[in-house]
């Protein structure tokens, strides 16, 4: 299970240029960084560039980390700012329009909270029971959306039971996330 203590140890090891620790740290948060970039609307190529720059800036900032538990938020904020920067650069190249580059949301807004929550979700989901994992996957993570009737058949319950089962599974997920939060 991921814990803040793990992050603290990894960060300390990364400061000493421990390659294994760096690989573990990037593997743990690469989905968070890349998905944060995707959710700003940038194209995939630009998201890849931002992803690389974020990890470089993190390495440069390792000595300034005072609270390892805030690392996910630092990664989200930095990724979003660099995405705005990247998008603005592209816009300037196209039509030379001057724009305000800086992301005006240094505080925790809904998207940052949702992304932090999504990171904790990715850590908590594998710890759910098979039935709940399957239900939440079918309800939320499939594109195109799976019809309720099909979800009910796959899970083996009546259509009318999906709502309450969904609430229970989300409740379990919330409890699991509380401890990693």
């Amino acid at each position: 299970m991921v814990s803040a203590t793990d992050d603290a140890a990894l960060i300390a090891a990364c400061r000493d240029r421990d390659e294994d620790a760096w690989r573990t740290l990037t593997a743990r948060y690469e989905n968070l960084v890349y998905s944060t970039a995707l959710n700003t609307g940038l194209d995939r190529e630009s998201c890849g560039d931002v992803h690389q720059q974020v990890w470089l800036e993190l390495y440069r900032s390792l000595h300034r980390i005072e609270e390892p538990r805030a690392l996910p938020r630092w990664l989200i904020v930095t990724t979003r700012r660099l995405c705005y920067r990247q998008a603005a650069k592209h816009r300037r190249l196209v039509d030379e329009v001057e724009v305000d580059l800086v992301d005006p949301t240094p505080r925790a807004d809904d998207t940052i909270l949702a992304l932090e929550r999504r990171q904790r979700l990715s850590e908590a989901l594998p710890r759910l029971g098979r039935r709940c994992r399957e239900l939440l996957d079918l309800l939320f993570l499939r594109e195109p959306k799976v019809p309720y009737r099909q979800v009910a058949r796959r899970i083996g319950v009546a259509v009318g039971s999906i709502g309450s089962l969904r609430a229970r599974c989300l409740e379990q997920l919330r409890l699991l996330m509380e401890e990693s939060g």
Partner: protein
Amino acid sequence: MSDSHEHEALGRALGLRWEAPPSSVRHRVAKLPDVESAPALDSPETAERWVPEDVRGADLLAPATPSLRVHSFSYADVALRVLPPAGQELWRIQGRVWIHDVESAPLRLVLCQGDHVLDVREVSDGEPFELQETLGERWSLEVHVEDRPPLIVEGSGGHA
């Protein structure tokens, strides 16, 4: 935050785009960067605008809590958190039991140490409970639901 808001927020988080970077992107950060040769942001002054000054914000984060586990059985899920005693206090076992059937009878919880029953409690489906006891190295919590086979979670010290 109310449960419905909580569920809404969870649903929103689940609905966010969430993808692993392609292997080509992953490969670019697989090794510790060489900061000497790596491209810098425009200048030290402008870099300040893009990178937060430090990594803090502990006040926004919940304190670490003891381990919570969800145990999945054929007809129910049992979530348990075991809190070790502080000083002269007792062990605390907190949790909830969710029965997969929507309509279900009351549940009986039986906390055991070997052949000894330490506590018996009746709870409803999904209702939070807390048991306080002096626990030894090995204990178990049995969940009895009508005439179904009991569900047994084995515990050891501070774990379940």
